[in-house]
């Protein structure tokens, strides 16, 4: 193994004979004149518009009526078995009538598959691209939770929405397993026609809590 490494590195170095010996990586110019954000207007409004562009549903709610809105959405989609990740605020699911599946001890993939849906918080939103970012923090659960169930209800606060990709990337913690989700799972593999709903949750609903 280390022999292969030595030989590859030797070949890389010999291939780079034209690079002056005293050149450091940071001496190679990178012009970062691109903008931090392309967003204009109200960031929360833009986020809602862009998430809906992917044919996901966004419901706006105040802190006070979020629990009722969440219960209504879950009932509407006939969710009777809901995966609730560790650390998810009880108050937000207080009005939900169905049964809850705890991930402690961890649910098996088959158990997750048999559930009707999952509810999670998010680490961040990105307005311009209509993206939610999960980083397995409290209330978000491990990655499989937001993947295997067929419905994902994601609760996000407007204050968590970043305007655009560069701003959002700079706020991430690289060591956390991170998933960018932009709309429901989709494919364009058949005649480049976009079809929503392949392996990930076919229904994505975002509840955006104002303030």
């Amino acid at each position, binding site marked *: 193994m280390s022999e*292969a490494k030595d030989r590859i590195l030797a070949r890389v170095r010999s291939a780079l004979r034209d690079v002056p010996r005293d050149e450091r990586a940071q001496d190679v110019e990178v012009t970062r004149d691109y903008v931090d954000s392309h967003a204009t207007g109200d960031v929360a409004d833009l986020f809602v518009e862009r998430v809906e562009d992917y044919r996901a549903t966004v419901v706006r709610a105040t802190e006070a009526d979020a629990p009722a809105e969440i219960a209504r959405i879950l009932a509407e989609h006939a969710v009777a078995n809901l995966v609730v990740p560790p650390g998810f605020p009880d108050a937000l699911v207080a009005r939900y009538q169905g049964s809850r599946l705890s991930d402690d001890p961890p649910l098996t993939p088959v158990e997750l598959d048999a559930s009707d849906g999952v509810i999670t918080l998010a680490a961040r939103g990105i307005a311009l691209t209509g993206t939610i970012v999960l980083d397995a923090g409290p209330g978000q659960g*491990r990655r499989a939770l937001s993947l295997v169930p067929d419905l994902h209800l994601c609760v996000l606060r407007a204050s968590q929405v970043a305007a655009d990709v560069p701003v959002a990337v700079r706020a991430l913690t690289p060591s956390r397993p991170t998933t960018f989700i932009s709309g429901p799972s989709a494919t364009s*593999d058949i005649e480049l026609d976009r079809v929503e709903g392949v392996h990930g949750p076919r229904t994505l609903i975002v509840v955006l809590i104002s303030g």
Partner: protein
Amino acid sequence: MSGEQVNVVWLGSPTFPKAAHEALQDTQLRGNLKHATTTIRDKRLRAVAELDDWETLRLAGSQIKDRVMRHLDEYLLQLEASVTAAGGVVHWAEDAREANRIVAELVRAKGATEVVKIKSMATQEIGLNEALDEEGIEATETDLAELIVQLNDDRPSHILVPAIHRNRTEIRDIFRREMGKHGVPAPQDLTDEPRVLAEAARVHLREKFLRATVAISGANFACADTGTVGVVESEGNGRMCLTLPETLITVMGLEKVLPSFSDLEVFLQLLPRSSTAERMNPYTSLWTGVTPGDGPQEFHLILLDNGRTKTLADTEGRSALHCIRCSACLNVCPVYERTGGRSYGSVYPGPIGAVLTPQLVGVGTSEHADSLPFASTLCGACYDACPVRIDIPEMLVHLRAKVVDSHRGGVPKPEALAMKGAQVVFGSPRRLAMAERLGAVGGRIIGIGGGRWLPGPAKKWTGARDVPVPAKESFRTWWRKAGRG
């Protein structure tokens, strides 16, 4: 030198002109391709036009890649250290055979006989599925298009949409015929509606995802400073593979390393808009080594050379390694649109394939790979579309010269002879005038026959192109007659 490279090109592939000639007769293929490339071209233009600093982003992307290539050894060592510190294991593979051997050993050590796979150019390049098959390990492609290709024992024709050459009806027939042989069969009443076909794939693959213990992926990027590896996808099959199994094996070309996690702010803007022409692809997964209690508890990263250091050594061809596999150059290429990807006889088709393939296998080693730099009109559309500003047309010209040079000493190639001849003719006004008169006579002869081919060494040229019938009089003759001489 590295060991023998296999599988970048498909063994026994005919030269491009020959393969293209056959592909051009296939009207179904041409229809499918035209529909698909036209759709995606228009979408890409709209997605790109939304960002008014697109050119600045392209420049930054290209400069970051330039920095990586010029200091690749440092970044690879840094990446190895940070992945290892995060609980991953890094392996180095000089060529396809070595990479395949490492993967097979890792799979066998887990006692697995089947693996699920995320679509990956690197694993296709090394022929991993075939190699695993020889070891008695069944690899299932989980990307919808790759599944279509695999079920039909077909070859991919596009980097992003490997089954672009198949329309919905053909796909329905493949699913009906083949799915049952490999697992959950397609429903009897399967229609050719894309939504219904996607549902059939979901059901067929879900059973495999829930059972799999080992997954194999490629990587879109790996950040040297943090050890974070990223996969960009749409369907969620990637997330399934990256999340559910106990062991994850990632095969990554050396050139995919990025200096820093923060560079993602450039590439996560450039890649989705250039590739699927979306503001953002549905799913992007980033992981750093192993996270206790979340996802695979064993992570192996295989760094693959397989001809990349050879490409790196050519200062004029080096930037082919900047490619982020978006496939925008395929979609805008007039040659690709007509011949399709399989005519290139390589895992990497289209304009980028025409510069990458001959470099990975080595110029002058294969007649087929040597024919690829000529598979272009040099129109420049690929350069305009490339999100990291790879000057493909210039590189094509450079590689054409290298191909011609590599044949010096032996029998000269027709291209070399033609250029020599042109030098003689254009070198003297008298000789040019004579050639033009001959051309006019020849034109009449070609015209009479109704044929559009030339004899002798030029036959090869006209085998792939119609010869325009030369004008009956030359410009010079016309000029003189018009009394302007």
